[in-house]
């Protein structure tokens, strides 16, 4: 099978670096993992991707243009220590919040794309995430572009309280407008897509794709186990379980993601 990896030689590390797979504990060369779309060649464990790595795998070279840079959360509830927490998260990750949005080309086709980033407070959805997705949908509608959301989230941003909840309705309404105007919306569910994100824009795709073995749920496994008082079966709420129950259209391997999305886009031109 033809590989679609865009990683250039200059991005390779010069010295050998071994990474231990968190699942099978194999020690594997970092370059090999990178060349394998950040999937463990031994056990197929999917590493979490930063938005940059994700975009590198999906976008045509140098086609990315970022939108709405630098938006930052305001402590609307005067929640104790929230500013501190944000400052620490920003310093640690180098990010402003939990999502990057912009325009890319996929095999020459221009699309609006948002990629969530679990390195920032578990990609919880607060006002910045909600606002950037809403603006992206509005932008895509105005410029007649297909819209792709690469979803991942631990759920709501607790420190923003009800403002966080309202981002669910705000983003869902914007996506609905975009779709009603004829726009194509592809949602990609990656590990983990949960809570308020799954129960809003993530599950509104015209076409919903999922990465293998991704946890996708409204209520998390721990909450369900506490409620029903027993352990959940293996594979419950994993992408394969959702496919079986009719909740997603396809499970797509990472090495086939770009070509799959490209085929879908070409059919909707």
């Amino acid at each position: 099978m033809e590989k679609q990896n865009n990683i250039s030689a200059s991005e390779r590390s010069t010295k050998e670096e071994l990474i231990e797979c968190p699942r099978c504990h194999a020690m594997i060369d970092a370059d090999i993992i990178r060349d394998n779309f950040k999937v463990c060649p031994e056990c197929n464990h999917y590493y979490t991707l930063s938005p940059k790595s994700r975009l590198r795998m999906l976008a045509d070279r140098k086609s990315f243009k970022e939108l709405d840079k630098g938006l930052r959360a305001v402590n609307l509830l005067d929640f104790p220590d929230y500013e501190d927490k944000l400052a620490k998260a920003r310093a640690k990750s180098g990010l402003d919040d939990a999502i990057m949005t912009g325009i890319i080309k996929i095999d020459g086709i221009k699309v609006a794309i948002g990629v969530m980033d679990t390195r920032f407070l578990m990609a919880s959805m607060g006002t910045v995430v909600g606002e950037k997705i809403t603006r992206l949908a509005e932008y895509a509608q105005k410029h007649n572009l297909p819209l792709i959301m690469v979803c991942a989230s631990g759920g709501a941003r607790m420190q923003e309280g009800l403002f966080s909840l309202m981002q669910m309705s705000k983003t869902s309404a914007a996506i609905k407008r975009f779709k009603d105007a004829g726009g194509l919306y592809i949602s990609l569910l990656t590990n983990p897509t949960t809570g308020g994100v799954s129960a809003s824009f993530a599950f509104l795709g015209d076409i919903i794709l999922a990465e293998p073995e991704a946890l996708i749920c409204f209520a998390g496994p721990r909450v369900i186990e506490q409620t029903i008082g027993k352990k959940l079966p293996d594979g419950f709420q994993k992408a394969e379980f959702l496919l079986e129950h009719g909740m997603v259209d396809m499970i797509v391997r990472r090495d086939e993601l770009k070509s799959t999305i490209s085929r879908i886009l070409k059919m909707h031109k």
Partner: protein
Amino acid sequence: MSNDKRVTPYDRVKLARDKDRPGIEDYIEALFDGFMEFHGDRLFRDDPSIVAGIGYFHKIPVTVIGHRKGKTLEEHMAYNFGMASPEGYRKSLRLMKQAEKFNRPIITIIDTPGAYPGMEAEANGQAAAIAENLAEMSALKVPVIAIVTGEGNSGGALAIGVANKVLMLENSIYCILSPEGFASILWKDSNRAPEACEVMRITAHELQELGLVDEVIPEGSRLFKNMDNVIYKELKKLMKMSPDKLAKDRYNKFRVMGEVFEPKKNREE
């Protein structure tokens, strides 16, 4: 005890959950004439934790939808303590679309500990069902009024809460998550719920100040009369708006929720 500072937020939580507090049966009895309950999502089953049907409000045919907790332990069990499953949200949406077809205003009554975190609910698409409601409600071309009467917890509350006017009874709460769940996530200790209530901003008056709730309805012996007056006043205003204006009004209401910091250079671009 209107905006009495001596009543702590946690006191409100206790009041909102009080077993002697009116339930949806009481509100329907007091506010609507000739109510008929309709059943089923036409896909799988009828979820009894949501009541939905039609009746008259001041001689105006309306659709009424709300959570049902029940009054006795037996009823609590039968109605799953007001925690709805996807079938309940799909029934709600079916009746909202029906209301739109026959140009009936929709009045929703919110009182739920949250969407049901159970295995069947997850397998049957809890996230997808809530997402669909949020998207569809945002564009309904009839007046929608939501009243939080007890607990309005999480996406399970919002799933019937995307309204032109959002009202709260003075001792109700509206939150991203139950205070116990909140304390458990942030501090790993659900016993700190009273403390969580102090910072979450979940009371009617606090949420009105934050601009997330339109009006607080005083309780006491005139509770039903007060509800009747406020709903009637708001409904009369909304019924003067055109179908498109109603949808636009609702979209704009949620669109502006949650201010973010924007760098100066973005605005100049």
